[in-house]
């Protein structure tokens, strides 16, 4: 399965994940405290420079990750054109785009394993409540492993349906798919127990 980490290695890949996350948290807080469209415009410009410093390909990928936001940009633009509050509309749009772009930047420059290590670190204080870091890592690995298995299963169920019926299966595939997930969970549990349990 593909992650959102950029294959183009830039300088930020070499920074520790914790440092990047802390910087992102600070910058995002700053964005939400800032009200002036000018300050937000400068922040957006700085973020764009951050991306462009990573090269054209890197910046294009970053731009593509912002694409799901266009309906919101459209709605906000239409709303503020209607009310005539252009400065407010610009501030909201710039803040949204910059905050999301900054967060995407951290994701694009941090490997999945490093992010999972961060989660394990965060989970350490929760160990007395049953969320031991090892169990969390095991659960995450299970999810990542089972997503392609379940996608295959779903395709098989759909094929089996199509072989017997001219109608499309739609939601009816969900019952056998969920049932398969429950059975897989039981089998995986048995396999884990046979190998010494989850610790």
């Amino acid at each position, binding site marked *: 399965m593909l992650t959102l980490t950029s294959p183009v290695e830039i300088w930020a890949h070499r920074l520790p994940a914790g440092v990047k996350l802390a910087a992102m948290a600070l910058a995002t807080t700053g964005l939400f405290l800032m009200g002036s469209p000018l300050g937000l415009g400068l922040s957006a410009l700085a973020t764009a420079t951050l991306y462009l410093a990573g090269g054209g390909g890197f910046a294009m990928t970053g731009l593509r990750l912002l694409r799901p936001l266009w309906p919101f940009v459209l709605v906000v633009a239409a709303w503020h054109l209607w009310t005539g509050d252009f400065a407010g509309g610009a501030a909201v749009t710039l803040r949204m785009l910059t905050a*999301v772009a900054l967060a995407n930047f951290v994701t694009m420059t941090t490997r999945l394993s490093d992010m999972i290590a961060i989660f394990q670190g965060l989970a350490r204080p929760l160990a007395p409540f049953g969320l031991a870091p090892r169990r969390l890592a095991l659960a995450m690995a*299970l999810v990542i492993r089972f997503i392609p298995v379940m996608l295959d299963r779903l395709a098989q169920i759909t094929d089996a349906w199509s072989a017997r019926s001219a109608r499309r299966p739609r939601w009816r595939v969900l019952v056998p798919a969920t*049932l398969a997930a*429950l059975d897989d969970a039981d089998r995986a549990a048995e396999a884990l127990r046979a190998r010494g349990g989850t610790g």
Partner: protein
Amino acid sequence: MERSLTHIALFAALIAVLGLIPKIDLAAGVPITAQSLGIMLCGTVLGARRGALAVLLFLALVAAGLPLLSGGRGGLGVFAGPSVGYLIGFPVAAFVTGWLMERTTLPTGLAAGAASVIGGIGVLYVFGISGMAIMLDKSLTEAAFLGMAFLPGDILKAVIAGLVTQSLARMRPASLLSRA
């Protein structure tokens, strides 16, 4: 212990898989994704605690950088965007759906459908709409207007969640941990 962990993991995977099904495949002509259906099923099948944990596990993997949200979205950016309220509401929605499912004495299918409407729509919309209002700097009424576009699809999903849960209860009664 192991069984609890694998159930949580497998349902987290199920939420991801449901988000990857093409929109049009679920119901004729209605462009909806099945992701929030996965949230509802976590509650109706696994119950409150395990259902909420499965959703949290799914969100952790999204935050870690896997593009598992419907439409291939993921990474930390989605938590800084206008839909963040829905993401925060996901585990709460699963918890409330599961909690209702554990408490009610209604027949399984009806209980699952009703719990999905209250938890998976009511609770989720409170979080999602508040989130949009804050992130887009709009009043709650204006944000609610935006959020209502998804209501018909979500009601259909609650009905499907009820039907799926009922079928599971009939085929494998022991599998419904929320009713165990």
